[in-house]
């Protein structure tokens, strides 16, 4: 399944016009009608292998602040494997993102490689989760992973770019790349805004 997903994925991104000053809302009568469905990227069913995982249950917190910590995850055998499976195949986008975020709690070379590959996912939300997963790895000794995050700074989706900026800044790495991205063409305005904030700290 993982290979299939990677084969289908690409560095797609969502165009993100810069955040403008919030103007007054204007009344609308109706939203657009939904077009016919395209082919789903992944199955709409939760794969049996992960549907019964107690780890999955914990990823459904209504408030992101309530996601489990490492101690809670450690009470479940194979929690890291479950998280990787969920990040790969779960049909709920937020489960995939949160699973990747929690994999940051596992400093492990294999998980680092896995998360770097997930940076190629078609879903920006998953790519953002993959960047945050890499925050838990030893980036100072892994040039490959560090470069992958630096590339993510340029992602047209602000969730990915901001995640990359926060991870690099948090690790004290790639200051030169951050400074370049702060003014580079094509970097999302919200990413540049966040980079500027981080550089000023």
């Amino acid at each position, binding site marked *: 399944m993982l290979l299939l997903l990677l084969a289908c994925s690409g560095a797609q991104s969502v165009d993100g016009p810069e955040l403008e000053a919030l103007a007054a809302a*204007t009344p609308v009568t109706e939203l657009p009608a939904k077009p016919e469905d395209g082919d789903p990227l992944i199955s709409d069913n939760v794969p049996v292998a992960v549907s019964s995982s107690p780890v999955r249950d914990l990823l*459904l917190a209504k408030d992101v602040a309530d996601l489990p910590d490492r101690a809670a995850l450690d009470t479940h055998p194979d929690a890291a494997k479950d998280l990787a499976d969920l990040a790969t195949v779960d049909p709920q986008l937020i489960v995939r993102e949160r699973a990747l975020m929690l994999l940051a709690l596992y400093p492990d070379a294999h998980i680092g490689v896995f998360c770097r590959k997930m940076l190629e996912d078609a879903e920006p939300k998953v790519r953002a989760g993959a960047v945050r997963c890499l925050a838990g790895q030893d980036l100072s000794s892994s040039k490959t992973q560090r470069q992958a995050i630096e590339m993510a700074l340029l992602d047209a989706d602000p969730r990915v770019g901001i995640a990359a900026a926060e991870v690099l800044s948090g690790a004290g790495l790639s200051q030169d790349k951050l400074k370049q991205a702060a003014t580079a063409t094509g970097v999302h305005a919200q990413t540049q805004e966040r980079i500027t904030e981080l550089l000023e700290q």
Partner: protein
Amino acid sequence: MEAALRLRLLGLAPVVLMFLGCLGVDAVGDTAGTEVPNCGSDALVLGSEGAFTHETIDFEFEWGNDVGVSVGPMVTIAVPSDTSSIAATVEVRGEETGFALVALDDKTFIDAARPDETDGAWWSAPYYHWGGLGGTVVLPITPGTTPDGECLVLQPASLSDLEGRSGTLHLVSRRFDPGQGQVDLNIVIVGDTALYQEELDAALTRMDDVWTGDGGPRVGQVNLYSTQGSGFIRYNDSNELRATPIGVASGQAMNIFIIQDYSDEPGTLGEAGGIPGPVGLFEMDGAGVIVAVDGHIWGNDLDTQTMGETLAHEVGHQMGLFHTTEDDGSRTESLQDTPACPASADDGDGYFSAEECSEYDGGNFMFWVAGNLAQDQLSESQAMVLSRSPITQ
């Protein structure tokens, strides 16, 4: 209580009545708590008979040494017997605000001068009150806080040192009983957020099903708005978003802002402006719920069932409902008839999942985590809090 502190509301809202300068603050804080004044004959009379009313009072802060927060004057308010609900909000743009004192007759619900972890102290039962943007209290939040008294005393506060700065106390009240009632919604589609009419309709149908299944209010009229720009917002811009000019004719509705996603707050489904947040108000701090579309994507589609449950849940927070059980099994909810999940239900990881608590409150719409089961149960008191909200009509 000094007579000068007793203000009379003069009309319908929003009416700025007068500016209070450098008022003294009475009897704030020994360890036994604040001495609560009585309403005199010249106390403010709340609201208008048979109507939803929004009234405002401007005041000035001074530093309250005894409570360690900035405080405004104590305001005494005569509560007519036909009052079914009250929401009070302290507005100082961009500052965390709240109440140093909330008392109804001889019942003190919030008193910042009380020792920590005693009833009525900040972050203690029944309100678990703390400062927030657009700090708000709602009566009732429990059966015991129903506004059946005669004299309400409020003292605005702020966690920041605002000595000499002005603030506004908003009083939103409803002096009629709508029964189960309905809640109208002001839904603002933010920027280029992708949401189709069928999806919104399905999500609101689910929200309505959740609320009405056990006797809560219906989802009423939906007023749609849109803004220009991006559907992605920075978390720090949430407050600015909630202050977006909507231009609604009446505040008697719940404001819901639908965004594509937070760009820097990963893993978020939605967020209320407080527990409770401002209700009956708009274009101000905390005044509305934000829900992220991308947090509800399932496969190639929007999971409108979950989005409807998120809407019901977050609006529940905004109207004053807490989680029935928190993630670690603790409780910050004061409703006696809402089931709680016992410690024995935990599988050992310290987190109480919906499945583990399915025999108790795992199916309640205010449970802390979603699950593989429908969460459409309300206790009688939860339904009461929703139906008695000032915005319910």
